C-alpha cells in the first residue's frame, strides 16, 4: 500500500497558517516511521514563495488566478484528481475554516473515510493509527485509519509548529491546474477585525470568563478582579455570542490567540476551540466546578470552588496588597 502522506497547506492573505506547520511536523514524524513521503500541496496564485519554509519531501505547487483566495469549490476541483490518481495513504487538512470545508465534501464525494478532531497520528506494527479528541476534549478516541486512502482534519496541541519549519527550501514541482468550472461561491471582500479598546493578544494579565459566568451582570466580578491584577477581561465563545462582550475580546479559534503571563480562566470548560488559543500562556489558572473539565489538563493550577465565592475574596486580597503597597 502506498504510504505517502499529502498535506494541504493553508494560507490566507500571504501568510502560511500555523496549522500547516503542525501538520508538516506530524507528517515528518510519521513518514520516517512509515517509509512514505510527505508531499505538501500548495494551491495559490503568485504564492510560490510560501513554500520556502515547508518541511516536506516535496512541494506540489499549483498556480492559477482562481486560486488567489481560498475557494472551497476550486480547491476541491484541484484536489480530486490528485487524490484519485495518486491515492496517498493519508491526506491531512487543518480542522479549520479552510481545511474542514474541503475535507468534508471530498470525503462524501469520493467515498473516502474521514477522521476529524485528530490530535496525533502514528504507525504501529505497520498500521496507521490516529487519536482524536471529542466531547469538548473530555474523551479521546484511538483507532486505525482505514485504507487504502483516508482523510483527516488535524488540530493543534501535540505537534509544535516549529518542527514543521524547514531551514532549506524544499523541492518544488509545478502542477498544471485543471480547467476549473465556474464556482458557485465568490469572495466579495474581507472584513478586518474590529479594533476594540484593547488588543488582548498583547496583554500580560487576562481574566477570561466562560459560560460559567452565567449572566452579563456577573461580568462585574471578573472586571473587578482584572482591575486588581492590572489586567483585562476576555472570554470564550458563548459570552461573545450572547453579546455580553465584543468580538474583540474573544479568545479562540475565530478570535485571538493570546500569550499572557497569566491566564485566569473562570467558568471555562476548555473545549479544543478555546484551548488552542491559550496554549502559549505562561501560566494558566482555572476555576471550574466540574473536576473533569478539560481546562484542567492544560492549567498549571486549578480549583473547583464556586467562582462566585472565590473571585470576590481573591479580589479583596489583591486590593489589600495594592493598598498596602501604596501606603
Amino acid at each position, binding site marked *: 500500500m502506498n504510504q505517502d502522506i499529502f498535506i494541504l497547506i493553508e494560507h490566507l492573505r500571504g501568510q502560511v497558517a500555523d496549522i500547516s506547520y503542525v501538520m508538516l511536523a506530524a507528517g515528518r514524524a510519521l513518514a520516517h516511521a512509515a517509509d512514505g513521503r510527505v508531499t505538501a500541496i500548495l494551491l495559490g496564485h503568485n504564492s510560490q514563495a510560501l513554500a520556502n519554509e515547508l518541511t516536506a519531501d516535496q512541494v506540489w505547487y499549483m498556480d492559477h488566478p482562481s486560486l488567489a483566495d481560498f475557494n472551497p469549490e476550486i480547491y476541491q476541483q484541484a484536489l480530486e484528481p490528485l487524490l484519485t490518481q495518486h491515492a496517498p495513504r493519508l491526506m491531512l487538512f487543518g480542522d479549520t*475554516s479552510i481545511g474542514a470545508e474541503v475535507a468534508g465534501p471530498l470525503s*462524501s464525494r469520493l467515498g473516502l*473515510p474521514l477522521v476529524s478532531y485528530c490530535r496525533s497520528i502514528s504507525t504501529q506494527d505497520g498500521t496507521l493509527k490516529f487519536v482524536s479528541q471529542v466531547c469538548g476534549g473530555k474523551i479521546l478516541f484511538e483507532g486505525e485509519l482505514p485504507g487504502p486512502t483516508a482523510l483527516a482534519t488535524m488540530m493543534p496541541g501535540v505537534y509544535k509548529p516549529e518542527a514543521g519549519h524547514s531551514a532549506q527550501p524544499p523541492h518544488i514541482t509545478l502542477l498544471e491546474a485543471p480547467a476549473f468550472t465556474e464556482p458557485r461561491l465568490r469572495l*466579495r*471582500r474581507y472584513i478586518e477585525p474590529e479594533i476594540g479598546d484593547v488588543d488582548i493578544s498583547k496583554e500580560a494579565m487576562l481574566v477570561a470568563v466562560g459560560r460559567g459566568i452565567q449572566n452579563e451582570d456577573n461580568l462585574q466580578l471578573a472586571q473587578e478582579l482584572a482591575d486588581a491584577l492590572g489586567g483585562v477581561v476576555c472570554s470564550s465563545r458563548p459570552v461573545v455570542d450572547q453579546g455580553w462582550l465584543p468580538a474583540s475580546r474573544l479568545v479562540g479559534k475565530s478570535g485571538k490567540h493570546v500569550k499572557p*503571563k497569566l491566564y485566569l480562566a473562570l467558568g471555562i470548560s476548555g473545549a479544543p476551540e478555546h484551548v488552542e488559543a491559550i496554549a502559549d500562556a505562561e501560566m494558566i489558572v482555572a476555576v471550574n466546578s466540574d473536576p473533569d473539565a478539560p481546562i484542567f489538563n492544560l492549567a498549571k493550577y486549578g480549583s473547583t470552588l464556586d467562582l462566585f465565592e472565590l473571585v470576590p475574596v481573591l479580589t479583596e486580597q489583591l486590593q489589600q496588597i495594592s493598598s498596602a503597597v501604596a501606603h
Partner: protein
Amino acid sequence: MKIVVPVKLVPDLVEELVINDQGTGLDPMWLRYKLNELDEHAIEQAVLLKERAGAHVTVIALDIDGADDALFTASAKGVDQLVKLCGDFEQGLNNHALAGLIAKLLRQAPADLVLTGVQAHNDLDGALGALLAGFLKLPYVGYVSGVSLSNDSALVRKEYPGGLMAEIEVSLPAVLGIQAAERPLSYIAFSRIRQAMKTATLKEQFLPQVPPAVQVVGRMYKSESGARAMMLQGDVDTVAARLVEIFREAGVL
C-alpha cells in the same frame, strides 16, 4: 424560500460520560442528550431569515432521546415543519450515514438553503453540513455568522482566525455551516413549548438505515492527561491566599 435545518442530538457534557464495557463508545444508559448548541444557532438563524423575508422552515432530527423536546422547542420559536427520522438507529449513526439519509430526503424534496451547526462535539467523522453538501453536490460555506438572502443567492459572513471575516456570495441552493446566529439564542417559555406540543405537526419519516461507506472503529477512553493541574484545596480564604502566593512567585504581582 425553503430552508431546512438538520439537527443533531448530542451527549450532554454536563453529565458524567461513561465509556461502555467494550471501550468502543459511550454507554447510552448514562447519557442524556441535548440539541447540539450550534444547531440551535442554525435554527435561530433560519427563524430570523423567515422573520425578515418570509420562508418556510423545516427542522429534521433523528428519533433518539430528546428529539421531541428539540423539535417542539423549534416549533415554539417559529419553525413551520418538524420531521423526525425513524428507524432502527439504536446503534447510533455516524455523520456519514446521517448525511446520506438527509441527502436522500432532500433529493426528493429539495431545499433552497440548508443550515446546520458548523460542528458538533462528537463529530468524529467530519461535520454533518460539509458531508451533506458533498453528497448533494451543493456549495458549502462553514463558520458562518451572518446570512442575508436574495432570490437566488445568499450573502454570508464567514469567520477566519483572529477576528477576520470574509463576505461571500453563494448561489442557491447551498449548505451553510452556522457558527453563530445573528442574534443571541432566544429563550422560549415552557408554556409555549407545551402549546407547540399540542398544535405542531410532527411528521415521522421512516427510513431504512443507510450503512456508512466506511466505519471508523477504535477505542474510546477518558482524557486524563499526565500533566494535570495542581488542584488547590481548602476553603475560599485558603485558596485565595494560595493564589496570591502563586501570583507573587510567578512575578505576576
